[in-house]
């Protein structure tokens, strides 16, 4: 009997999903400890978080609405990493998409809805995609890690849009923002006064599309080959010049969509820092999702709930919403380091020859 149980645990330890879930709870545990150490009551924090995210029609709608751009951000990360590039530039690509959609959305007010909305999306995807492809291009030209490049580009896009907004596109008056988008460029709100808009349907469709693209198409096959083993991919005739560019374009385009939806579905205009942090949350979502489209969707919903609930939590417990970043960090580390979870679970089982032994000195 004991042997059976040990074998079961042994098998589970190797299951990616199980490990990811354990990692998630481990992160929660560590967060709880940190909250206690700083002097907040975890119970109060979590209960207000939960209420803010799930209790009441308005809150639930907000949770879904908050999750919507995160789904895109997570998919963006996932597409890039499946093809072997670590896209930490999602933050900048989202800003690019948001800004572009706002500019287009306020420039052609006469167009009918059926053309205007897709147009705004297309421009957002184009701009986001180009900004993403730029990361891949610079990586090849400069022969430097894409992370350094992408972070630089994030700052550049942030300041660039702030400059353009402040000096060329802002409305008169105290507030620095673009004009309101006309009705014909807005996504319907599914629940009035909430963040939930029809973008969520688009998000789910995109999840399905990305799943299909990566797993069923020949192009997706090439992407995965490149991600797993670029040398073998090169020998198989997959172009190491164009594949990273194409993959990052797609990744950036999806990120651009995230920005567009925030503008067209939630705020109805563009203002500085409106999407701050979405990109990095997208990175965490992509990692927690483990490279699967469905996993990414679920992770996005989880983080969306956290984010939505944190506003309530801030009101009740007066802890800044940025504490989510702590949780994001813990999730990233624990999910991507199965060694930690494994060592905790199997401490009694294996002599863990992979870890440092005290006897070896």
């Amino acid at each position, binding site marked *: 009997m004991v042997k059976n149980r040990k074998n079961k645990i042994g098998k589970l330890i190797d299951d990616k999903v199980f490990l990811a879930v354990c990692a998630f709870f481990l992160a929660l545990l560590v967060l709880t400890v*940190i909250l206690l150490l*700083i*002097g907040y009551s975890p119970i109060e924090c979590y209960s207000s978080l939960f209420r803010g995210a799930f209790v009441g029609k308005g809150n639930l709608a907000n949770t879904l609405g908050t999750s919507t751009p995160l789904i895109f951000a997570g998919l963006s990360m996932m597409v890039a990493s499946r093809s072997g590039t*670590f896209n*930490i530039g999602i933050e900048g690509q989202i800003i690019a998409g948001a800004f572009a959609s706002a500019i287009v959305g306020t420039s052609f007010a006469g167009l009918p809805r059926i053309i205007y909305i897709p147009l705004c999306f297309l421009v957002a995807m184009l701009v986001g995609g180009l900004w993403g492809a730029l990361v891949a291009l*610079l990586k090849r*030209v*400069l*022969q*430097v*890690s894409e*992370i*350094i*490049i992408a*972070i*630089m*580009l994030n*700052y*550049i896009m942030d*300041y*660039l849009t*702030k*400059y353009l907004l*402040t*000096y060329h596109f802002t409305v008169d008056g105290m507030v620095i923002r673009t004009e309101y988008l006309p009705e014909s460029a807005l996504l319907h709100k599914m629940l009035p006064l909430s963040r939930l808009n029809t973008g969520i349907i688009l998000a789910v469709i995109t999840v399905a599309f990305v799943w299909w693209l990566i797993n069923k198409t020949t192009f997706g096959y090439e992407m995965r080959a490149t991600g797993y083993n670029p040398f073998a991919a090169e020998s198989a005739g997959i172009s190491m010049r164009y594949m990273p560019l194409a993959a990052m374009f797609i990744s950036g385009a999806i990120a651009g969509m995230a920005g567009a939806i925030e503008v067209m579905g939630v705020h109805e205009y563009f203002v500085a820092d409106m999407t701050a942090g979405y990109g*990095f949350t997208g*990175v*965490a979502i992509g*990692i927690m999702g483990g490279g699967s489209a469905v996993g990414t969707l679920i992770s996005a919903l989880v983080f969306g709930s956290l984010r939505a609930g944190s506003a309530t939590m801030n009101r009740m417990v*007066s*802890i*800044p919403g*940025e*504490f*989510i*970043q*702590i*949780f*994001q*960090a*813990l999730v*990233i*580390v624990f999910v*991507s*380091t199965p*060694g*930690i979870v494994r*060592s905790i679970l199997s401490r009694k089982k294996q002599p863990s*020859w*992979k*870890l*440092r032994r005290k006897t*070896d000195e």
Partner: protein
Amino acid sequence: MNNMIAFLVSLLSGSIRMCIPIAFAALGGTLCERSGIVNMGLEGMMLMGAFSAVCGSYLSGSAYVGLLAAVVCGCMMGLILSGLTIRYKCEHVLAGLGINMFAGGFTIVMLQTVWGSRGKSTVVAGLTAWPLPVLNRIPIIKNIIGSVSPFLVLLFVCMLLVQFVLYHTVFGLRARIIGENPYVAGSAGIDVYRTQLICVLCGSVLASIGGAYLSIGDVNLFFKDMVAGRGFIALAIVILGGWKPRGVVLGALVFGAAQSLQIRLQAAEIPPQLVQMLPYVITILALFLVKNQGKAPAAEGTHYYRDGA
């Protein structure tokens, strides 16, 4: 003539001011990478260093206690990074990014806890410049180098120290070999984990001190997001400096001078956002213009398994 001197003085002091934090972080990054550990968490370590320095100074009233706090904080960050990458075989990049994110969230939460503010702390005691004995009496010269920031002195000392240790001691030889191929070192009986741990700890402390300069060495307070990507610029400087201590500090100085020069040459009519964009553009340009500064340590980013590959 006076204008010229004033301009040069301001340029020099501006260059140094921008160089110091990046130089410390780059020095720390070099040390880590030389032993095989890529430290993507320089940004977060600088942030935590800046914050702990302000905390230390705030709670004790002395900036030197703040500096000490930054050192201790650096040690802790180093323990976390080494624990994750060396012991648990985390991808170096992800461990570093995790540290960055953690630091970002943690410092803002603590800002709220300690000062009740979400933006910035109160002004605290900062590290005042040390007057230089003879030089600070001479009329014109005393404005240029009459006093020197203790951080600058510390930077110089650290650079020489790292240079000496890496290239002239047994420890440094072993660390460099581990960075090229840890299995060679392991097969010669060297404790790879311990050497890497020491390098990461020291490197993290250096990064933390760099952050401390930003707060108690410069503006004497902490505000949200004050590192603003310098940790990543430092990583680029590590590459540009060829993973050599002197090269890296020189690179940071050149970067500081470039940025300082740009800001001063352009009239005040340039929109602030574009000026703020400069350091990041300069970094990319520098990576473009300067190629082949030397090769990265061959085994950096990899994991060493003591019980066999």
